[in-house]
C-alpha cells in the first residue's frame, strides 16, 4: 500500500529561545482528514510546535511542509500559504474594533482580494456554520467567550483552510461555554477538516481524535490511538500526566 503524502509534514523541528531549548527535534506528520490531539504538561512546547506549523514562530532548524508548500523556503509566499492554515487561539484574539463579520472578512478582502460583497457572503456563510448567523453585526465585546471563539473559528474557515490548528481553544472559557465550541469543532471534523488540536479536553479527544500525541520537555514521548494512550500508556511520564489530568 502506498501511503498518501501527509498534509502536514514537520521534521526535525528544533526551537531555541536564546539559551532555552524548547523543541528538541520534533517530527509530526498529519494525514489528510486526520485529527491529531497534542497533550503534555505546561511548558512542554505544545504551543511552540503549533506556531512553528504556520511559522508564527521561526523554527531554529528542521523543515515544515504543509499541503506541499515548503513554509521555510524563502521563495514561499508566506501570507498566501497561511490562508490555507487556519489558527484558533486560546485568547480568541478577535479584533475588538470590528464586528464579527468584519473580523471574518478582513483577510478575504485584503489578502484573497475579494470584493466586499463577495467577502460578506462568504463571511455570513462561515458565521452560519458556527451558529452565529444572527451575530454578524456584534462587536467582540458584546459576545460571550464561547461566541467569540466561534467567531474566531469562522474567521479561519472562511478562508477555506486545508488544515486547522487549535491552541487550547476552550481553556479560557467558562465550563458551560465549552460545549458550544467543541460542537463546532466536531462538525468541522465531520466535514473532513484536517485538525491539530492542543487541548486538555480528554472527553473530546476520546470521542473525536484519530491520534493522541504526548509531548514533554520539547519531545514527543509517545503517540497512538486515544484508547491506547489513555488506557495503557507505554511511558511512566505519560501515565503520570494522564492520571493528573483525570483526577480533576
Amino acid at each position, binding site marked *: 500500500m502506498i501511503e498518501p503524502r501527509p498534509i502536514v509534514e514537520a521534521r526535525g523541528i528544533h526551537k531555541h529561545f536564546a539559551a532555552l531549548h524548547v523543541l528538541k527535534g520534533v517530527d509530526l506528520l498529519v494525514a489528510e482528514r486526520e485529527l491529531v490531539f497534542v497533550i503534555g504538561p505546561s511548558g512542554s512546547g505544545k504551543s511552540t510546535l503549533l506556531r512553528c506549523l504556520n511559522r508564527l514562530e521561526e523554527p531554529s532548524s528542521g523543515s515544515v511542509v504543509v499541503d506541499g508548500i515548503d513554509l521555510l523556503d524563502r521563495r514561499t509566499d508566506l501570507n498566501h500559504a497561511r490562508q490555507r492554515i487556519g489558527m484558533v487561539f486560546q485568547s480568541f484574539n478577535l479584533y475588538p474594533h470590528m464586528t464579527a463579520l468584519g473580523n471574518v472578512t*478582513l483577510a478575504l478582502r485584503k*489578502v484573497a482580494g475579494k470584493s466586499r460583497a463577495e467577502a460578506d457572503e462568504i463571511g455570513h456563510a462561515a458565521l452560519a456554520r458556527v451558529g452565529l448567523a444572527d451575530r454578524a453585526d456584534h462587536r467582540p465585546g458584546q459576545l460571550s467567550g464561547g461566541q467569540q471563539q466561534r467567531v474566531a473559528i469562522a474567521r479561519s474557515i472562511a478562508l477555506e483552510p486545508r488544515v486547522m490548528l487549535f491552541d487550547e481553544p476552550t481553556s479560557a472559557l467558562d465550563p458551560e461555554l465549552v460545549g458550544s465550541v467543541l460542537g463546532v469543532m466536531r462538525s468541522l471534523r465531520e466535514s473532513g477538516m484536517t485538525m491539530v488540536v492542543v487541548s486538555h479536553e480528554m472527553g473530546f479527544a476520546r470521542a473525536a481524535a484519530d491520534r493522541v500525541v504526548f509531548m514533554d520537555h520539547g519531545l514527543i514521548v509517545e503517540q497512538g490511538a486515544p484508547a491506547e494512550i489513555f488506557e495503557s500508556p507505554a511511558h511512566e511520564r505519560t501515565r503520570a500526566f494522564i492520571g493528573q489530568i483525570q483526577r480533576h
Partner: protein
Amino acid sequence: MIESFLNVGIMVQAWPIILAGLGNTILLSLMVVPLGLGGGIMLALLSTVKHPWVRYPLMAWVDFFRAFPPLVLLIFLYAGLPFAGLELGGFACVGIAFFLNTGSYYGEVLRAGIDSVPAGQIEAARSTGLSRLQALVWVVLPQAVRNVLPDLLSNTLEVIKLTSLASVVALPELLFQARQAQSLTYNPTPIVAAAVVYFLLLWPLVRLLSTLENRAMASR
C-alpha cells in the same frame, strides 16, 4: 485701561485683519496637522521594526527633533539655509519644521498606542495571511489610535497653538495679523482680540481633553 486694551474703535478697525488671520491659522492647521500625523504614522510603523539598524537611528531621530525647540528648527530653516543658497520661503519652512517636530511627537504617541495592543492581535492577523504592514494598518493602528486618543488630541491642540510660530517667519496667520494691526494702530487691542479668538477657537478642545484626561487617570 479699557481705553488701551479693549478699544472699540480700534477693534472695529482691526477686525477684518484679525479675521483674515484666523482664516489662515485654520488653513495652516489643516495643513500641518495631517503633515505631522503622516510623519508620526510613518515613524510609529517603523518603530515596530525591532532590528537594531532601524531601532536606534529611529530613536535618535525622534529624540533629536523633540530636543530642538520648534522655533529654533524654524529659524534654522528660514534664516540658515538661505546661506547655502536654499531659499525655501516661510510657508515651506513651516511645513518642514512641523513635519519634523510634530511628526516626532505624534510618532511617540502612536508608538505607545501600538505597544498597548496585545501581540495576539498581530498573530491572529498574520495567521490569516495578512502581511506585517496590513496587520499593522488594519488591525493594530485602529486600536492603537483609540487607546491613545486623548494624547493624540492633546498633541493636536499643541500643534494648532504652535502655528503661531509662523508669525516669526511672516506668514499672515492670526498672531502675525494682530501684530500688524497693533503696529498700525499703536494699541494692543488687536493682540487682546487675537488672544480671545484663539481662546474661543480652542476652548472646546481643551474642555474635551480635560474630561478625557480625568477619566483616563481615574480608571488607572
